[in-house]
């Protein structure tokens, strides 16, 4: 009904998730970060699986993969993946809370977003110290 009769031109409406319309806020940023970290984690997974494959195959192949793994680039990917996995972990727990109809008040939801960001940094540092 929104289109004028006789016109075959479609109305250009914004597509979900309306990134260009909504004001940036804690709840949206923490949600988008969940998706970004989930996908960025693939860098760490690919490097880790390649390293494991190299260990299984031969000594020279492992020497190559291990050199990449223990280089500044490998350490950057692994440290970044560690933060990403902890962020995604905490954000996932938050989703389980939301599913249980908990923490849905705006103030609480915003605090939980900060908890995900600060908590993930804390857990990353803690993991590096322990391992």
């Amino acid at each position, binding site marked *: 009904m929104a289109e004028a009769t006789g016109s075959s031109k479609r109305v250009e409406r914004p597509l979900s998730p309306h990134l260009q319309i909504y004001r940036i806020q804690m709840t949206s940023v923490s949600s988008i970060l969940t998706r970004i970290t*989930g*996908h960025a984690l693939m860098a760490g997974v690919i490097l880790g*699986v390649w390293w*494991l494959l190299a260990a299984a195959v031969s*000594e020279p192949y*492992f020497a190559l993969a291990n050199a990449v793994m223990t280089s500044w680039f490998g350490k950057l990917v692994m440290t970044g993946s560690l933060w990403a996995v902890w962020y995604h972990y905490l954000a*996932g727990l938050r*989703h389980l809370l939301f599913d249980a109809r908990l923490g849905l008040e705006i103030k609480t939801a915003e605090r939980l977003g900060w908890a995900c960001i600060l908590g993930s940094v804390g857990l990353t540092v803690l993991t590096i110290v322990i391992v």
Partner: protein
Amino acid sequence: MQYLTDRKRAVGAGAAHSGTAHHWFMTVSSVVLAVMLPVWLYLFGAAIGGTRDQVVAAFANPFTAILTALVLVVSMRHFAKGSAVMVEDYAHGTARKAGLIFVSSLAAVIATTGLYALIRIAL
């Protein structure tokens, strides 16, 4: 003649037309991963930096091998399904089909490669 009414077909299917199956899968896999990951992160992190013999010995341990296999399979299914939703959100038409095939295949290749490496190391 159709015996199911339109209403009956729609109940429980929601806007995604696939009901709650996807959401429930992500819930179950996230809980399972939440239990496994802290232990697995410690074992994997401890293995990094070792010689090949040390790495092979670490992943030949039955507990580490089984846990790594479980983490790989569950996380790659979790990724494939989560990533598929992102593709469905942003891509349309042929790009959507290609994207869905790509993320699903990528997850399968990574999981299978990891399992192959584990089998060679642990068996």
